[in-house]
């Protein structure tokens, strides 16, 4: 147990120092994820034109939704597909495989550290956003916020493992990262970043509920906003846990198969 904590500590500290050196780039990265903020403006414009509210969402409701969506987007970002792609193709994976630690945890630590470096900016943007639309209530109670943290952690694991699986495909295919690009494009519409899924036709919503997408952004956001009752919240958390477990199994299986193919490239 002590050894495990020690490894975690070392990993986190190393990656934190690494990520802190990229502060400026990280700020730029954060600003590129502005789609929810742009959509915030568009939907508020729509609500104002429709006379104050649209399908039960008033301007402050939209503000709460999209600010939460932006927050969730910041917490669930994963780029590990690109890291793995680089490491596998350049042979940099070899020294990492010699460590007494699964490479998976190295990447988790990197992402966690980057998240910590992002925190000040996230807080700043959220504060500005909340001040912009008067009457915005992000969350009805601290309990909702705590449950949201649990939900968003599960959501991050779903997204992270999905990206990890895509990266693992690099063992077989050269341009597997293209799949991650496709994910980014379709995720804007399928995860609830473009619009609350409430606005989607019923048949689309029902189909989407069978995919992991709504569980990455939409459901955590609704939990935070207090739009779901407790039985539904517990059900959402359960489904998220199932997806995490499912991806965990798929990931480890693919990784084992991939490693067998991996003849250290030039290392």
């Amino acid at each position, binding site marked *: 147990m002590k050894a495990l904590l020690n490894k975690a500590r070392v990993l986190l500290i190393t990656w934190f120092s690494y990520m802190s050196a990229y502060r*400026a*780039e990280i700020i*730029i*990265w954060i*600003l*590129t*994820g*502005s*789609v929810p903020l*742009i959509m915030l*403006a*568009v*939907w*508020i*414009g*729509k609500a*104002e*034109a*429709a006379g104050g509210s*649209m*399908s039960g969402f008033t301007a402050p409701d939209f503000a709460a939704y999209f600010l939460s969506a932006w927050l969730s987007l910041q917490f669930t970002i994963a780029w590990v597909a690109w890291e793995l792609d680089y490491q596998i193709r350049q042979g940099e994976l070899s020294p990492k495989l010699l460590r007494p630690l699964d490479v998976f945890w190295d990447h988790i630590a990197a992402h966690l550290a980057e998240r910590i470096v992002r925190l000040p900016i996230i807080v700043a943007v959220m504060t500005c956003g909340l001040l912009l639309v008067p009457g915005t209530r992000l969350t009805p109670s601290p309990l909702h916020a705590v449950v949201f943290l649990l939900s968003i952690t599960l959501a991050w694991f779903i997204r992270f493992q999905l990206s990890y699986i895509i990266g693992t495909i690099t063992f077989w295919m*050269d*341009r597997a990262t*293209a799949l991650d*690009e*496709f994910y980014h*494009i*379709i995720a*804007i*519409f399928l995860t609830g970043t*473009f*619009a609350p899924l409430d*606005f*989607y036709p019923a048949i689309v919503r029902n189909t989407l509920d069978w995919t992991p997408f709504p569980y990455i952004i939409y459901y955590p956001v609704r939990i935070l906003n207090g739009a779901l009752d407790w039985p539904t919240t517990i059900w959402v958390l359960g489904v998220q846990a199932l997806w995490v477990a499912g991806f965990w199994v798929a990931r480890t299986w693919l990784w084992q198969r991939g490693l067998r193919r991996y003849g250290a490239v030039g290392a």
Partner: protein
Amino acid sequence: MRRYIRLLGVFLRTTISLQMEYRANFVIYLVSALLQACGALFGLFILSGDGEPIGGWSYREASVVVGIFTIMQGFIGAVLIPNLNKMSEMVRNGTMDFTLLKPIDAQFLVSTRNVEPFGMIDCIIGLIIIVVASSGLPEMRPLTIVLGCVLLGAAMLIVYAIWFMLTTTAFWFVKVANITQLFEGFFHAGQFPISAFPSWVRVLFTFILPIAFITTAPAEALIGRFSINTIVAALVLALLLLVAARWLWNFAVSSYTSASS
């Protein structure tokens, strides 16, 4: 002048034959472009779900904006990203010196050396969207099409100038490979007609980041909703930004102390 046109042809031929070596990239680009365009149109559909116009634009009219946006994405991907984003790398490696020493205008060389022909896919998809949408728009006449093309050209020059000025900062802040992502992130707002946004956002997108002139103005002209003020403003803005870009380039080159002593 003829020399530059001939060089343009040479650059196009060489980079196209290089890029065509990678067939997989072509398929990937095509799928991405289609997904983006379908996504944008689906998004508009959701936005106009209750039948209400989007900021005063009907679904057909708003899809013209999406078409223009897609064409601009193609322009950015085909011309701007392969060339200007290399500037920070060139300054870091010292290869900028070789570019500056060539006997032709360095700004021309830096801007046109590489072309990503797959960007044309976005342009074609954008054109298809506009053509399909235009079948239900009676206001589209030859005059509006010409005006639309003129404003589209102005829009391309505006984006080029902004992009160029952002990447020229590489001369001072060498690690700015991602700086254009700042623009790209907010450029996504260009998918929507500018009137869809609340008034203070419209001010932001007209005076601070001129996205209104880049996508909404050409679309307005195309569907026949143009005003002389907007057209003149767009052209003047393009000219001003080009002059500013040129000035910044000359300033950067003159203060550049080169890779070796």
